[in-house]
């Protein structure tokens, strides 16, 4: 197999893996195996799925530094777009299955539940990143592209706030995600980032 074919296969595999949860949830709902409130099931799962996708996306840069493997860089845009896709499904689930498209209720909900506004801000940010993820936008934005896409960091913060605000009685699960986020962000601190390639070298020496 050519190198190009190998990368295509890798990207295709990642695509299918990222798609799989959606197919699974859809199938569960179709089989009435998603509990008595299937809309809420999709709402919660798509939201958590979006957070997973963002954390995976943000892991790719440190992983590349650590391993120098090109494959991680090749799926960065794809995973970023999956984050947007899951987040969009999360909003869609809310509008369709929770609100039932009752827009009058939306008004009162937004006032009552400020965390919805926080989530919406995060989604708007993701849309901006998605819309500028193509080559044309990258060329057009030039040097400004990179700082723009660092918006992913505050977006992660907004998502964690959105999640935190909804917790009723146990912060255990939230704490896991917040810790993972903190670790991933810590790899971007200059002293840590500098050491990642060196750490790889040391591993190679041991071997």
């Amino acid at each position, binding site marked *: 197999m050519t190198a190009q074919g190998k990368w295509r296969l890798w990207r295709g595999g990642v695509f299918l893996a990222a798609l799989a949860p959606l197919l699974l949830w859809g199938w569960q709902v179709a089989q*009435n*195996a998603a509990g*008595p409130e*299937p809309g809420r099931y999709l709402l919660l799962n798509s939201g958590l799925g979006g957070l997973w996708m963002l954390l995976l996306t943000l892991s790719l840069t440190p992983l590349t530094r650590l391993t120098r493997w090109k494959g991680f860089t090749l799926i960065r845009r794809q995973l970023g777009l999956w984050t947007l896709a899951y987040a969009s499904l999360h909003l869609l689930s809310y509008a369709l*299955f*929770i609100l039932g498209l009752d827009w009058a209720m939306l008004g009162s909900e937004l006032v*009552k*539940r400020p965390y919805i506004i926080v989530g919406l801000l995060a989604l708007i940010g993701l849309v901006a990143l998605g819309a500028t993820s193509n080559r044309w936008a990258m060329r057009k934005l030039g040097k400004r592209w990179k700082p723009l896409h660092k918006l992913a960091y505050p977006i992660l913060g907004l998502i964690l706030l959105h999640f935190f605000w909804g917790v009723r009685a*146990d912060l*255990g699960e939230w704490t896991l995600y917040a810790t993972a986020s903190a670790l991933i962000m810590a790899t971007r601190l200059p002293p840590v980032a500098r050491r990642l390639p060196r750490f790889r070298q040391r591993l190679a020496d041991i071997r």
Partner: protein
Amino acid sequence: MLINIAKPSDLRESDVTPESVYLSRRRFMGGMAGLGAGLALSGRAGASADYSDVPSGDAPAWLKEKLEASRRRAIVPDDTEQDAIAPFDDASGYNNFYEFGTGKSDPARRAGDLETQPWSVVIDGEVNNGGRFDLEDLARPSRFEERIYRLRCVEAWSMVIPWLGIPLAEVIKRAEPTGKARFVRFETLVDPEQMPGQRSSFALIDWPYVEGLRLDEAMHPLTLLALGMYGRELPNQNGAPLRLVVPWKYGFKSIKSIVRISLVEEQPVNSWQRIAPEEYGFYANVNPQVDHPRWSQATERRLPNSLFNPNTIDTRMFNGYADEVAELYAGMDLREHF
């Protein structure tokens, strides 16, 4: 002693939803959990009195006997179309019981091994006849009743569930409260070995879970101590072997797996009020006019619902039991005492 009062919510046997009506509202297939399992379980509990499709548990003989001798359909809802009984799988597979985790399916997944036999309940405080009672001794003197109640969760969803149990008033009377008793305080079992939620270091609840009622609320004929549902004993995840059901209050007031009932002078601080006093009050009466600070209480999603029909209905004052209980709160500002 049997308290029998005719109330608007008391209907006759003939008013029970015909099974065909009930079934037409419902999906037929579905599983509690797992992928393949969903298909294996066909058939749901109908509105027939025998609940032949509900899996039988392993209740001790005395409890089985009491459950079978229950007065069936002692209280049923007036709108049997909207208030159709939720399928057993939903009522037992989707609920909150934070002692077993915060997910809605955690209790069903993790409560299976809870040891409920033997079980004893301490009755203490301002009573002349207190002590530690074996569950059987506590429940045996009363005739069991089946009551079909709406259960409104503070999270704005609701289900209709057929409980089996005894009026709390009868248990309290037998304990002979002293003149000082003004409130009733309840406690859930604390056993981190059996209850994984109590092992979480991030839990905001200070175990044991505590609930409370004013004495007149506790003595109200609608207030039930449930030992069963759907014709059988309570599944562990629903608060076996003994739980409270107060149908005009938010679900969290209906404390599960009770080990202690205390008659007290001072108003108890219930667990949710302790965590977030601005969100949860002592009374927690269902009230569409008083919102939770983080969401509206004007409507509720009646479960089970389906994807494109959230089944949102208007929430009723006192969960539709205003005729029976409103007088308890005459003259009170329910905005202040939420």
